[in-house]
């Protein structure tokens, strides 16, 4: 006989199975019988330590079985379970030596403890049976704790909702046009908790379609003030997959560069989640591991019929329950019913991923050039409905709006998405994802790879909203992943949670900087020298950039042209190409602009020190590179040989001509320059910049090349550098992208999985070899 063998006798499969599951989980050997006859047959052949026995059985009753067992194997300890307790059967069972007499529904903890205690006494002196008692329904709990699962009545939930409505803004799921939407809720009766999926996800309350980041005044009373909303709000009816999406947003907006607006909303939001029991036909949440959740909510409800099972996820949730609802411990039956409800819902999902979600990053990596991307995008409308309805999409754009007086205004962010044509377009007109297939692929890569790798969480929660919203019927990541898995020959069927970070209230607030000097370089380019009003230094590394604001016009990323070795002020050389740069060009000495930063990684000074440096700038590539040239000259002894190559399109487009002249005479740096097209005034080299490279002798073993220029230049310059056998690790480049927010959130600057504003803009060629969309 197994010392821990248990026989469960009950005619209800669900009771049998659930008790069996609990006990197996607790390490017992479990056998089951569905009738008295079957139980007796089993007992005849095999011994058991404990029998859990229902009274009302078809055929032989529990009492009859108990009698038989008492004769055949009197050492088996029996625990009676019944939903129909009576004084007669209680007395009878006691007479026949039953250890205990439990009323269904059962509390699994209690049953397991009883069995454990019983087993501890098996084989010892006969147990003195405890007094058999009929247990009433468990009383309301006095202390509600986090992590507990409790039960509340529908009236209890109603009381919670109606109390919340009196205290705070409540939004919840309502029916509209036969679909479900989140909307303001004034009473419990309006709420729908049996929805399949909402048209828009609840993330709209954490990252609204449009929200004000700053309020500002311009002119004599110039002022910039960050704005955060702190209204209390409860969201009711959030499905687990959306809870998982919110956990991703928490990671993206709270873990690094803590976003003050997001945090204010998040910390003032109560999330009352509800298990999804009627999944959308387009949902594949189970495949993404988001069907259920144990974290990310204040309360989580499961509809189990007349009552709700409620999991307590936070102190806030515990407080709500304690204050407004009579919560009690669940009975065993209620736990069984919760499991049954969830299992039944699971059976309703029609779609599944044919590849384990953990395999998605690799699958996508190998499918970058798959014809699938092109084949599916002919019908794409570039309407971005897929990303607008996505709970894990969080990219945004930023705009300034002013009053008609032009004296005051607001800077706000609004939803944007990588499926829109202009998403990756920069002021100079270059669009880094200009075709539908590359945008489509980028979105799928974000969902299946980039987000997963950056945040360690699922990038797609399987809600199916995009598949529903896409009129062209191409948006479902499930479909894409399965098609790619299929073509890869794969046919097979894994969290970090952001801590409630201290918000960085100044994240989006520019610091006022005064224009102390402005010089024209060419008719299109000027160099501006700024000093922060508070007197602090910018503290940049060469190669970093700043976000420069002209309040009312907007904000643009601008590379920093001066070395940190120059005290107090910093210089930004700027070409007039867009709204902000045009406004900057109109400024005069004494004007105030807003500056955030510095941002980005900058040039790898540690790797450059002690080496020969070959610096190559094409056109306005000299703007960021100049900071490094200055740095090298100011710390001359830290570097080996220094060579600077500069190419301009024409003599008239040469930049920093005084400095060029100084460098050409300096013994500290070897300087060569060329122009694409000469004129009568020009007596120097003519030809593209690549023609200068063969003229320079370099020691390959100790040379680091730093290249900055327009995208077209890189390919050719790299070709020449490779002819000199400079290893990829020693070729350093700075890339231009649309770095709208500077803090790794808005998404515009992304190259594959990399945020240029965070991991860039400076990369080695070795790094870029792994970033297909970089050059």
């Amino acid at each position, binding site marked *: 006989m197994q010392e821990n063998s248990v026989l469960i006798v009950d005619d209800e499969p669900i009771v049998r199975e659930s008790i069996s599951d609990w006990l197996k989980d607790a390490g017992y050997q479990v056998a089951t019988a569905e009738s008295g006859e079957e139980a007796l047959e089993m007992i005849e052949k095999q011994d058991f330590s404990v029998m859990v026995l229902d009274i009302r059985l078809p055929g032989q009753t529990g009492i009859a079985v108990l009698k038989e067992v008492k004769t055949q194997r009197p050492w088996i300890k029996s625990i009676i379970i019944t939903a129909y307790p009576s004084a007669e059967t209680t007395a009878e069972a006691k007479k026949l030596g039953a250890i205990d007499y439990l009323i269904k529904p059962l509390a699994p903890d209690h049953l397991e403890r009883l069995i454990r205690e019983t087993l501890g006494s098996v084989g010892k002196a006969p147990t003195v049976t405890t007094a058999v008692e009929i247990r009433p329904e468990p009383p309301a709990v006095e202390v509600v704790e986090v992590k507990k699962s409790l039960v509340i009545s529908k009236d209890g939930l109603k009381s919670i909702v109606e109390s919340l409505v009196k205290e705070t803004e409540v939004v919840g799921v309502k029916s509209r*046009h036969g679909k479900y939407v989140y909307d303001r809720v004034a009473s419990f009766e309006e709420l729908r908790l049996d929805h399949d999926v909402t048209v828009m996800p609840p993330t709209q309350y954490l990252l609204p*379609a449009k929200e004000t980041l700053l309020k500002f005044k311009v002119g004599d009373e110039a002022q910039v003030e960050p704005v955060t909303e702190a209204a209390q709000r409860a969201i009711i009816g959030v499905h687990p997959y959306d809870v998982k999406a919110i956990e991703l947003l928490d990671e993206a907006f709270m873990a690094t560069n803590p976003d003050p607006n997001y945090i204010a909303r998040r910390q003032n939001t109560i999330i009352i989640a509800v298990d999804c029991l009627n999944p959308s036909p387009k949902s594949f949440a189970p495949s993404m591991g988001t069907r259920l959740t144990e974290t990310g909510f204040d309360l989580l409800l499961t509809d189990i019929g007349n009552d709700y099972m409620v999991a307590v996820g936070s102190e806030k949730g515990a407080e709500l329950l304690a204050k407004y609802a009579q919560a009690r411990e669940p009975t065993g039956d209620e736990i069984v019913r919760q499991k049954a409800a969830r299992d039944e819902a699971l059976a309703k999902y029609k779609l599944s991923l044919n590849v384990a979600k953990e395999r998605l990053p690799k699958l996508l990596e190998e499918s970058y050039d798959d014809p699938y991307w092109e084949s599916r995008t002919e019908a794409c*409308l570039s309407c971005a409905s897929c990303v607008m309805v996505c709970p894990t999409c969080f990219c945004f754009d930023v705009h300034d709006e002013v009053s008609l007086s032009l004296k005051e205004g607001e800077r706000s962010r609004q*939803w944007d998405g990588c499926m829109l*044509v202009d998403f990756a377009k920069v002021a100079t007109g270059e669009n880094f994802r200009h075709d539908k297939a590359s945008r489509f692929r980028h979105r799928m890569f974000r969902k299946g790879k980039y987000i997963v790798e950056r945040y360690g969480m699922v990038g797609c929660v399987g809600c199916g909203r995009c598949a529903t919203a896409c009129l062209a019927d191409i948006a479902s990541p499930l479909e894409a992943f399965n098609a790619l898995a299929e073509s890869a020959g794969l046919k097979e069927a894994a969290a970090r949670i952001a801590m409630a970070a201290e918000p960085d209230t100044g994240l989006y607030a520019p610091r006022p900087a005064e224009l102390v000097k402005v010089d024209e370089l060419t008719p299109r380019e000027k160099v501006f020298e700024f000093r922060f009003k508070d007197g602090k230094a910018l503290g940049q590394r060469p190669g970093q950039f700043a976000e420069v604001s002209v309040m009312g016009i907007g904000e643009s990323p601008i590379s920093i042209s001066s070395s940190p070795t120059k005290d107090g002020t910093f210089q930004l050389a700027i070409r007039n190409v867009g709204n902000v740069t045009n406004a900057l060009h109109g400024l005069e000495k004494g004007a105030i602009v807003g500056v955030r930063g510095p941002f980005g990684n900058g040039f790898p000074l540690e790797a450059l020190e002690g080496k020969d440096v070959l610096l190559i700038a094409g056109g306005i590539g000299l703007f960021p590179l100049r900071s490094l040239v200055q740095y090298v000259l100011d710390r001359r002894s830290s570097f080996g040989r220094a060579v600077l190559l500069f190419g301009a399109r024409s003599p008239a487009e040469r930049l920093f001509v005084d400095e060029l002249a100084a460098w050409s005479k300096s013994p500290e740096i070897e300087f060569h320059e060329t122009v694409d097209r000469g004129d009568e005034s020009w007596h120097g080299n003519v030809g593209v910049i690549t023609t200068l490279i063969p003229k320079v002798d370099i020691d390959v073993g100790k040379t680091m090349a730093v290249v900055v220029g327009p995208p077209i230049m890189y390919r050719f310059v790299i070709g020449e550098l490779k002819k000199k056998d400079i290893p990829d690790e020693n070729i350093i480049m700075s890339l231009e992208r649309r770095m709208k927010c500077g803090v790794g959130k808005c998404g515009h600057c992304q190259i594959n999985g990399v945020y240029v504003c965070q991991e860039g803009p400076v990369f080695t060629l070795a790094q870029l070899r792994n970033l297909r969309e970089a050059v």
Partner: protein
Amino acid sequence: MKPKIAFFDFTGCEGCQLDALNLTGEELLDLLNAVDIVNFREVMTERDDDYDIAFVEGSITRESEIARLQKIRDQAKVVVALGACACIGGINCLKNHVPMEEALRTVYGKDAKYYDTIPARPANAVVTVDYYVRGCPPTPTELLKVVKALLLNKAPDIPGYPVCVECKMAGNVCVFERGMTCLGPVTRAGCNAICVTSGRFCWGCRGLIDDPNTDSEKDILQKYGLTVDQVIDKFKIYNTYAEVAK
């Protein structure tokens, strides 16, 4: 110096001009503090032909209108097309589907001989247009946005993306899911999806986005039950001139 603004009407219902200044009293006063309105037949009798910014309303449907518009272009530093007719040709272009003689006869009957007409066209078919205040009718908000941008010497943030984006921002249930059809996926946003939000669908009055996937939109309209003729009619209403109603 406050910029001088003039409003001119060509062929249209003139609703755009009326709606354009459907501002609150406060907004109107702010506007008048910022600009001088020197020419606006709908609201004032004074006229001055010295102006910086010209708002032109209506489409061009008569020979004489071509010369008149060219003269406005010559005078104004900035020309802004106001409303669907001026921006994209609008509903006036529906007549382009029939011979001009027939159009005249249908409208004027026996008096047709006293009138002339040419196929209707938007303002930019005749002169260079700098900015567009789109819609039938346009919203005062957008007009003010363009005015403020002009005052700030910046390009106005008028969306280049389709109505779907704003429709999702508004939290609407998709028109197609409500059993109707819609031109939102190919129509330029900026209206906050007002028609859909009010329970209708997008008629396409703001014109097409750049590089619209009209083939896909037509397939979708058919998938949702429209016949080929119905699909074409849907595009015809506002977008005849864009030659997509084929």
